[in-house]
């Protein structure tokens, strides 16, 4: 309906292979980016930025990370939380060791550590597949969580056992610590998320992205076509963990300000996995949609009783939220097991062929 593709023809492969070959999609994307970079900062209050947008973006990035591994390369992981934790602790140590360094660079660098650790835990994936692989990643989850508790060096021997983000400035603006404004944090988080999402879109449409999907769709055929399974899977583990690590670091540096080992527990792993599954395996856009659903829905649910005039205890609301989210997850899995991305695809296809049904 809104798609009017007549007259959009490609005279070069460059144009044909563009990320968004359809004009209307490019316009849509531009609108979203303008909203994110201009409209929201101009209109949103601190609460909206801190409680909704920043965590949403952090989770979106984490979901992209997990999606690379699970959605694009077909390797199930339950260790996302821990890999995020590695990023967080690495960034914390880096800023402690290099207090004058640019904190954004440190955050981006922290992902390298989680990438390395992710690759190590990815090694068994050569022999182990499916649910069995989940055990490997569970081992990573619990082992790393244990490390966060038992290795005091990681949290600078704090009495509390938690990491607290110090105040750091970037180009004269306070970027981290309690005094950092939500707006500054928002822009940093948005910038990093958009940048990584864009870079990943590039990787996914090229040789490497294809090799991941080959392994996912038919590993034996992929191997017989010259794809080295271990190398390819390890790369997916590393890239995925890198992104999760950066997301984990952003989570503590630009959102929570402080974190303890339990922040990166198995619960977080599941939360991100849900975002990926509900958003749609193998879709970058889906990662954003899944993150929005899993993060923003409970926030909204918390306000619903108040808006309706009920006066309920905070606890009750929280429990009800849990129930509703659980029920909705099951509901959406039943309605569309391929996630919101598929729903969007179907809707888009409908709009493209409108008024025809197919």
């Amino acid at each position, binding site marked *: 309906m809104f798609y009017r593709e007549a007259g959009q023809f490609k005279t070069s492969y460059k144009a044909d292979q563009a990320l968004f070959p359809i004009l209307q999609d490019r316009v849509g994307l531009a609108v979203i980016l303008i909203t994110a970079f201009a409209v929201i900062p101009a209109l949103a209050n601190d609460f909206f930025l801190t409680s909704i947008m920043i965590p949403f973006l952090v989770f979106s990035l984490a979901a992209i990370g997990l999606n690379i591994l699970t959605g694009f390369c077909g390797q199930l992981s339950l260790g996302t939380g821990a890999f995020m934790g590695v990023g967080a602790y690495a960034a914390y140590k880096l800023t402690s060791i290099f207090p004058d360094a640019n904190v954004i660079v440190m955050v981006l660098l922290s992902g390298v550590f989680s990438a390395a650790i992710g690759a190590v835990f990815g090694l068994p994936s050569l022999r182990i597949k499916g649910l069995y692989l989940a055990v490997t990643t569970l081992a990573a989850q619990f082992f790393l969580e244990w490390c966060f508790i038992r290795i005091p060096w990681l949290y600078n021997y704090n009495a509390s056992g938690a990491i607290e983000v110090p105040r750091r400035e970037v180009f004269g603006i306070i970027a981290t610590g309690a005094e950092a404004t939500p707006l500054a944090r928002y822009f940093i988080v948005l910038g990093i998320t958009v940048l990584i999402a864009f870079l990943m879109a590039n990787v996914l449409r090229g*040789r490497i992205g294809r090799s991941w999907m080959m392994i996912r769709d038919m590993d034996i055929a992929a191997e*017989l*076509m010259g794809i080295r399974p271990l190398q390819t899977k390890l790369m997916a583990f590393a890239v995925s963990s890198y992104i999760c690590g950066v997301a984990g670091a952003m989570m503590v540096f630009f959102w929570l300000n402080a974190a303890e080992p339990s922040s990166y527990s198995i619960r977080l792993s599941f939360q991100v996995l849900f975002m990926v599954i509900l958003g749609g395996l193998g879709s970058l856009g889906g990662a954003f949609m899944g993150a929005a659903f899993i993060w923003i829905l409970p926030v909204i649910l918390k306000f619903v009783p108040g808006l309706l005039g009920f006066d309920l205890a905070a606890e009750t609301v929280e429990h009800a939220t849990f129930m509703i989210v659980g029920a909705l997850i099951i509901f959406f899995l039943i309605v569309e097991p391929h996630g919101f991305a598929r729903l969007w695809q179907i809707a888009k296809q409908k709009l493209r062929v409108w008024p025809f049904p197919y």
Partner: protein
Amino acid sequence: MNAFVTEKTLPPADAKEAAEREVLLRVDNVSLTFGGVKAITDISFDIQKGEIRAIIGPNGAGKTSMLNVINGFYHPQEGTITWQGQVRRKMKPYEAASQGIARTFQNVALFKGMTTLDNIMSGRSLRMHKNFFWQLLWRGPAEREEIEHRRKVEDIIDFLEIQAIRKTPVGRLPYGLQKRVELGRALAMEPDLLLLDEPMAGMNLEEKEDMSRFIIDVNQEFGTTIALIEHDMGVVMDLSDRVVVLDYGKKIADGPPEEVQASQAVIDAYLGVSH
């Protein structure tokens, strides 16, 4: 107007001439066992450069196992395999690809989540080298490389006449077209040896004819050596230069189609199945 004399240089049919051709792959006394069950017993034959070699036999004769041995997916317990004049060590399946062996599968093994175009592009994987950092940037070397290979892939799409399904996810294609896409994917590897595992299984007559034409065209246009497994005797006899017949994991005949067709052992084996 007799200016046009259609003198096609056909591949040599008689065995004598064939013997002079270069041997691409030789299998010597190969045996393969699964947990005590013999799948292949003491088989020897060769594949010559530029020919279409058929491996036929009744169900369970060990044809697919033979292909799996050739491309390194199974490792025979006994015997040697000589590839382009060199005895091959035990190798990983992915090494077969880099040595120039491509194959298709009995039950289509396409990458279901990808489009026809991407599936065939995946055949170019080994020939694409731009590293992760170029891929991240895309603009520049990675994009140029992609376009360069896309051009080659488009040749194959054109060759197989599948333009109309270029951007269709392969899962949605009818079976016959999936087989064609799979052939395209193998062709994209520009292999020296192309292994086709029952390329015409489950096809109707028209699709079979199309596929036969493509196989012959591949052989003649690109000079690709082809080894194919097929159930349908008729198709094999028309297509191939030489035929190996297996039965219960043993070789029972080897030679030009007419000769093999006349062999009593072959007739018995095929009749034995239908009884």
